[in-house]
């Protein structure tokens, strides 16, 4: 075990290093980048969901004063490399890769599809130029739903594929599915829909690309979750060596999965800069962000559940359809993870699963916080539906089905060990906090007075990073790398490939490094956002707590050993007798022996000691023993059955994300995720009409939760089961968004139980609540 100093930064709500600049308005976001001679780009976009491009006439735009260039799809096709989207190659998991040009040349495939880019002296002039570009289209029949896309007669969105079914309709079986269903007391069937909604970071996408004709280096200032993945995308598309592309990033105004890699617009801007030899900036406006940046979650599930009369969930058989939109990037990955995670922390013995991915004339399906979240929604919804049919309480049916924590660990039927899972504890804890029996009494009293309260429970586990497989092998998240350096001013610098966009890595990683290395927090600097300087990495998938926290800890330990070896020569003591405390190397028990770490670095650099002059190490970490993140949430709501308005009276979360690095930051992640889940259920929907026109292109149409809709959220951290000797921090970025939707929907259904309402969907704005009540009431008053 690590030697633990009495006073530790790790585990304390240390104030954020990011805040002095952010609160002073001195953050540096993508739109704050200004380069000499910089031009501005705006895109000409399709008004049609599906059409053939017959002609593009940019002559009027090109002659507008202030317009420097107009590059059409055809112009860009000549100077870029066509090929499958690099992200699809990474995340497509076997889905067909359509062939398409960077900007539209032959066809437009969604409203907002970029057709040309206008580059001008200002953004105002670039938009003026866009209005002068004449595009002739021929309408093609739009494919605007998964049902339409599954029809073999639907017009192909990509001619090269010939079909709108792009992902395998492949069936997997775990356990004895047929036998389990044959032996079950009952089989229940449900069709469950999850609606399309989207990330909506407060800062949209954007980039500033600057090509230097002299050196041949293209520098791109990006808003990204990974400078290296963005660099890979740009180099591939522009046919450049990766070493000729440098990607820089500053502060990022949120992302939630949106800003991975390089988007088509960003690639077009990079190509334009190279063609023009001048810096070009593009900043996505909100309408573009809502219409074309990407959307998520549109999935439907046909579910069969094998159940015993006592409430044992014996098996599930699920068929899933995912609408990946136009220009697919996540084709097969999401169904793959959903399949793996569907059993959750429960002991079900059989799972059948098949999935079909389709392409449609809507925005691309992209990663959004907990991309596989529908597995939790489906499972936790099904449990409540079954409980209601069987007359069981939602807590009871869950406790009955949770796999016990045994040694060796119980296995998910899909193959992962449920090592250290604390689902039972978190369920019992939230029920205790809200006093479930007392709530049921109050609920009955209020119902008698015509007030409809409901309670909802849901639980999740997340492989963040997931436990190491018992048969050995590497961790599930691969390796995380870091370079650490002690410089002559005594500053410990961490170079990480993480690209924080709200996660506060400049604080949390410094906390861990300061503790492990033995310097004050203020003496640690965290460098991010330069592909020439930082190792490969990506912020996403809730990986940074374990993976980057772990590599920080082990790297700091490695560097400390190196520093102590040098200090041993200076102090003439054995390195084993030395320690670093508060930035000083001392002989243990002899404070008078202290020499500052800066002095050790200076001596090493002097070359006089005959040691490696650079006090630097490269470290990597595979996740160690890993472990599950997870937790249970509970919401108490009131539904106004006259207006359909849902008010959240109370929201409680019992979470286990392992050892906390910074509790305030962890709680911020949990609350933020829950707020997005509440938004998804009560407000947010990316809506299209039947012709594929986008209906949610402003914040008056795409409603986000405000301070008036999100309640105080009570969070309790459970004592975790440590699995690793050193690194038990686990990811917490996605759980809130994964489990809040079923928690809230379960509560709403509970409130509406007197009306006989059953809910098979996730989006429940007031109008839909009233429809559900009306549909089930059949002209009668509520049963008491």
């Amino acid at each position, binding site marked *: 075990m690590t030697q633990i100093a009495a006073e530790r930064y790790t585990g304390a709500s240390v104030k954020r290093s990011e805040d002095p600049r952010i*609160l002073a308005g001195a953050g540096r976001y993508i739109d704050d980048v*200004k380069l000499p001679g910089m031009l501005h780009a705006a895109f000409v976009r399709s008004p049609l969901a599906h059409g053939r491009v017959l002609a593009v006439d940019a002559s009027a735009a090109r002659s507008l004063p202030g317009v420097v260039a107009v590059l059409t799809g055809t112009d860009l096709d000549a100077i870029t490399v066509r090929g499958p989207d690099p992200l699809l190659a990474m995340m497509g998991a076997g889905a067909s890769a359509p062939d398409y040009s960077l900007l539209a040349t032959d066809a437009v495939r969604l409203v907002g599809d970029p057709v040309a880019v206008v580059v001008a002296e200002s953004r105002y002039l670039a938009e003026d130029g866009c209005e002068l570009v004449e595009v002739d289209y021929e309408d093609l029949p739009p494919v605007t739903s998964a049902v339409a896309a599954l029809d073999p007669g639907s017009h192909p969105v990509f001619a090269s594929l010939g079909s709108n079914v792009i992902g395998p309709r492949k069936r997997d079986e775990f356990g004895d599915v047929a036998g389990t269903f044959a032996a079950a007391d009952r089989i229940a069937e449900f069709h469950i829909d999850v609606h399309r909604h989207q990330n909506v970071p407060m800062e949209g996408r954007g980039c500033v690309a600057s090509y230097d004709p002299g050196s041949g280096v293209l520098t791109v200032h990006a808003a990204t979750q990974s400078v290296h993945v963005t660099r890979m995308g740009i180099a591939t598309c522009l046919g450049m060596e990766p070493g000729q592309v440098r990607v820089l990033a500053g*502060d990022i105004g949120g992302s939630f999965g949106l800003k991975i890699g390089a988007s088509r617009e960003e690639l077009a801007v990079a190509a334009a800069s190279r063609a023009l030899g001048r810096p070009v900036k593009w900043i996505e406006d909100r309408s573009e962000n809502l219409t074309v940046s990407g959307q998520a979650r549109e999935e439907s599930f046909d579910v069969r559940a094998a159940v015993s009369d006592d409430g044992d969930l014996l098996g599930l058989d699920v068929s899933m359809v995912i609408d990946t939109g136009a220009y697919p990037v996540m084709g097969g990955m999401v169904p793959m993870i959903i399949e793996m995670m569907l059993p959750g922390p429960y002991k079900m013995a059989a799972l059948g699963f098949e999935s079909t991915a389709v392409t449609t004339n809507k925005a691309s399906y992209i990663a959004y916080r907990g991309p596989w979240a529908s597995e939790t929604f489906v499972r936790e919804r099904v449990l409540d539906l079954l409980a209601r049919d069987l007359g069981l309480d939602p807590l009871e049916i869950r406790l009955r089905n949770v796999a016990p924590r045994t040694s060796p660990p119980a296995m998910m039927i899909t193959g992962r060990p449920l090592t250290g899972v604390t689902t039972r504890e978190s369920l019992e804890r939230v029920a205790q906090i809200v006093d479930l029996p007392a709530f049921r009494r109050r609920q009955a009293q209020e119902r008698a007075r015509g007030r409809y309260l409901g309670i909802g429970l849901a639980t999740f586990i997340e492989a963040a990073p997931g436990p190491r497989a018992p048969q050995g092998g590497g961790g599930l998240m691969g390796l995380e790398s870091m370079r650490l350096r002690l410089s002559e001013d005594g500053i410990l610098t961490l170079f990480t490939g993480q690209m924080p966009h709200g996660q506060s890595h400049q604080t949390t990683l410094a906390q861990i490094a300061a503790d492990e290395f033995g310097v004050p927090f203020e003496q640690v600097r965290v460098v991010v956002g330069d592909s020439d300087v930082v190792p490969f990495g990506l912020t996403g998938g809730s990986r940074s707590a374990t993976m980057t926290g772990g590599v920080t800890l082990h790297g700091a330990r490695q560097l400390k050993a190196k520093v102590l070896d040098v200090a041993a020569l200076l102090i003439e003591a054995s390195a084993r007798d030395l320690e670093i405390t508060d930035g000083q190397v001392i002989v243990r028990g002899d404070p008078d022996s202290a020499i500052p770490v800066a002095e050790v670095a200076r001596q090493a650099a002097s070359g006089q000691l005959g040691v490696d002059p650079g006090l630097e190490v490269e470290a990597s970490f595979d996740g160690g023993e890993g472990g599950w993140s997870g937790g249970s949430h509970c919401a108490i709501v009131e539904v106004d059955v006259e207006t359909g308005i849902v008010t959240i009276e109370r929201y409680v979360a019992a979470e286990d994300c392992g050892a906390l690095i910074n509790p305030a930051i962890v709680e911020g992640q949990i609350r933020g995720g829950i707020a997005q889940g509440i938004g998804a259920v009560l407000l947010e929907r990316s809506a299209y009409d039947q012709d594929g026109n986008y209906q949610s292109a402003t*914040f008056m149409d795409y409603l986000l939760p405000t301070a008036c809709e999100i309640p105080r959220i009570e969070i309790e951290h459970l004592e975790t089961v440590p699995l690793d000797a050193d690194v038990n921090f686990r990811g917490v970025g996605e759980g809130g968004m994964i489990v809040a939707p079923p928690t809230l929907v379960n509560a709403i259904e509970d409130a509406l139980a007197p009306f006989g309402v059953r809910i098979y969907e996730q989006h429940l704005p007031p109008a839909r609540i009233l429809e559900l009540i009306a549909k089930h009431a059949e002209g009668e008053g509520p049963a008491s």
Partner: protein
Amino acid sequence: MTDITVRVNGAARTASAEARKTLADFLRDDLDLTGTHVGCEHGVCGACTVIVDGRPVRSCLMLAVQAAGHEVTTIEGLAPDGGLGPLQEAMRDSHSFQCGFCTPGFVMQATAFLSAHPDAGEREIREALSGNICRCTGYQSIIDGVLLAAQRAKAGPGGDQ
């Protein structure tokens, strides 16, 4: 183009602006005050909020020429030494923000609100900030920051230490 003079953060600034240029773009592009962020350009998200003549204003919905002769305060003007004012300190202590993009708008909106309503409680603060959107935090930490600032202001200098 029109030459306009605006008092920004206590100093008179003269520049020429096209009639169609928004105050937000004028502050950011012409005066290099990039602390004011543009989040939606249609007045809903509040990220671009600045204070004009003591009142919070969406600088994406106001033209630069309309600000001529008026007094504008931006996030950069709250603590002229580059440090943090009392509200900003309270927000830091409350871990109010994450990505920071909405932050200047919240800080300006809350500054204007607290100066007019120093005794406001949580309900009023939530309503006053309900025109500002944050996608990261779920708002609780922001509300807590404003409440802490109000409480400290009442306690006086060093009052809560």
